């Protein structure tokens, strides 16, 4: 009896000991072992079908992208936009001088036009067309060239901070003759209210907005129109708290990435509101738009941003929350421009100096 009890006792001790040991060992190995068998990580099968995770707070802003193109560029640059970043617009429209249904190209100026000299007319008529057909369906209206590359996710994040029912004009802010405007090549964005004011107040008026003409300076003229209808100019460089680097790049990234200073043209330095940097300090980590992107460059950006995956801890997904600015906040942070510097539009020369 005593021997039997002693044996059972030892068995209990051994069982407890082994159970504790195995429990701790297996638990810790499971928690800390990174070598456990995992399936191969999947990569996207094609670049154009790369998908993005949905940001959870509220529906994303609906952005209509109006891309200016011309018949000669439809099969090269416009098609590249269509195959890359254009896929991530809420709606993509090409404004040209001739229709081309497969890509959604709309002719908004007469067929004899369409070149660079018609840029202002194309922009005016393009916005008018967009307003007539789509104004009620979208929040923001992006105007880009067919050689611009836009990171739509970062644009959506920027625009979350603004109410599309307030008059907002968004882009890379520059200044000429003390008149503010947004760089056209870097692309700019109108809120729904801004587009409404353009189409109903500025479009028809010779006093508020320059009339159609050849060699019109599209971005400078748009700046004049926006100021005169009381739209707030939001410089994207300062639109994100804590980030004071440009997010819209009027030049090719090649010019910014070179360390040599000569790659930045003098006109950009003169007319930019803040200092233009080069190298890795040039641009915001949340950059939105790059200009002078060739077809190959667009696919390179698509590959580097959406396709190529780097096993790096700093690439954790950003999920910052942005609260929306009220109209009074907007007025305080981005006050209306002083339009006293704008000369009488009827007396304005055909092509101002240094353009």
């Amino acid at each position, binding site marked *: 009896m005593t021997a039997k009890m002693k044996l059972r006792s030892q068995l209990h001790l051994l069982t*407890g000991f082994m159970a*504790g*040991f195995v429990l701790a060992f297996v638990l810790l190995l499971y928690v800390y072992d990174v070598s456990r068998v995992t399936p191969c990580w999947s990569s996207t099968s094609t670049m154009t079908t790369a998908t993005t995770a949905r940001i959870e707070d509220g529906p994303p802003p609906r952005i209509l992208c109006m891309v200016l193109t011309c018949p000669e560029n439809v099969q090269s640059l416009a098609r590249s936009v269509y195959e890359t970043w254009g896929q991530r617009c809420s709606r993509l429209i090409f404004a040209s001088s001739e229709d081309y249904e497969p890509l959604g190209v709309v002719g908004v100026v007469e067929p004899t036009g369409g070149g660079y000299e018609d840029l202002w007319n194309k922009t005016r008529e393009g916005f008018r067309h967009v307003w007539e057909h789509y104004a009620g369906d979208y929040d923001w209206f992006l105007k880009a060239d067919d050689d611009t590359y836009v990171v739509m996710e970062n644009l959506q994040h920027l625009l979350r901070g603004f109410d599309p029912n307030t008059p907002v004009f968004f882009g890379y802010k520059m200044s000429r003759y003390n008149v503010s405007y947004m760089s056209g090549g870097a692309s700019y964005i109108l809120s729904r209210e801004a587009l409404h004011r353009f189409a109903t107040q500025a479009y028809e008026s010779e006093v508020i907005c320059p009339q159609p003409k050849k060699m019109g300076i599209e971005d400078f003229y748009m700046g004049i129109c926006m100021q005169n209808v009381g739209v707030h100019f939001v410089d994207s460089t300062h639109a994100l708290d804590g980030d004071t680097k440009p997010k819209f790049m009027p030049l090719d990234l090649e010019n910014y*990435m070179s360390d040599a200073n000569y790659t930045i043209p003098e006109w950009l330095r003169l007319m930019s509101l803040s200092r233009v940097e080069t190298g*890795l300090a040039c641009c915001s980590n949340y950059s939105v738009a790059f200009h002078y992107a060739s077809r*190959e460059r667009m*696919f390179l950006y698509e590959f580097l941003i959406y396709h190529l995956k*780097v096993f790096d*801890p700093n690439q954790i997904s950003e999920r910052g929350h942005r609260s929306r600015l009220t109209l009074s906040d907007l007025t305080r942070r981005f006050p209306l421009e002083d339009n006293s510097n704008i000369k009488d539009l009827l007396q304005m020369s055909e092509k101002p100096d240094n353009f």
Partner: protein
Amino acid sequence: MGSLFSPKKILQSQYTMILVMIRNIIFLVLGIMLGIRLTDFIGYLKLWRNNDLRASEKAALLKYPVASEEHLATWLRREVRILCLVLTMPSSHATKAALVNRTWGARCNKLIFMSSQTDSNLNILQINKSESRKNLYAKVRTGMAYVHKHYLNEYDWFLKADDDTYIVMENLRLFLYPYDPESSVYFGCRFKAYFSQGYMSGGGGYVLSRDALRRLNLFALNSTTICKLNGESEDVQIGHCLQDVGVIAGDTRDFQGHHRFLPVNPFTVFPTILSNSWLEGYFFHKPNKSDCCAASAISFHYVKDFEFELFEFFLYYMRVFGLHRTPRALPSRLGFRQMNERLQHWSQQVTDNKN
């Protein structure tokens, strides 16, 4: 009858049961503690062989042997130690070599430049041979011999690259992690040649295991019959040497058949590798034409000066809101049998490219 149920005996029985329970719990706890210590000890044994680990890092890692996901890439940098040998020349010290030094080269465990002149800003191994294409092979031989003599046991893998190569070091480590550096294998972009195994293109970089480097130096470079100096390209000659000493050419394509080492600039292969290009005829394995490049791409060649920082910006600075880019788990390490099976499979591969 009454004495069997006396209160005294019942109390004693309960007291004994409580004592037994306490004793069992004590031994369970002891088992748990021993299991924890043994897991720590195993982690310690793993780290002990990593002799470049500082004492403070050892102490920190002992507490968390493998740490959390956020530190995976940092941990991986210690697990897969890569020495980078970069071919350059005096005229490129201030441009390409300096760019390598401050971009991807900074993520090598050790970076050595091979040039004919020294430079105080770079870690240069001076090789007294005139700079010409026909001396490249001799230069690489000398570099390999130096590295074998001084660093063979301090690093696991030995990468040779040009100063116009860009290497995504995190993806290289991720790719190499499953493989044993004591296996006789090397990786790169595999090209066809008149010898059966083919060779790895020099411009896209190639990486030798420790045993491959050992075999190259002990059996090939010391031999007057196996590995002769002749007029062929550096990469062809090295490939021939390595085949002759039994180093196996590994397969570096992803599971979709895309090449991870790209011997050209990705610019030139967007959106897909063109048919009948010079590159298509060189590949040992026929490339997948559905798109151009692997999502886990490792190297690019013919990189222009500004593109070093362009890649740096897009891979390490650029953020896209809501987009997950990083695989979160490591593949499993191959055991001895699995590694041998893999080597056997690679050694039996025959080119499927008939161009």
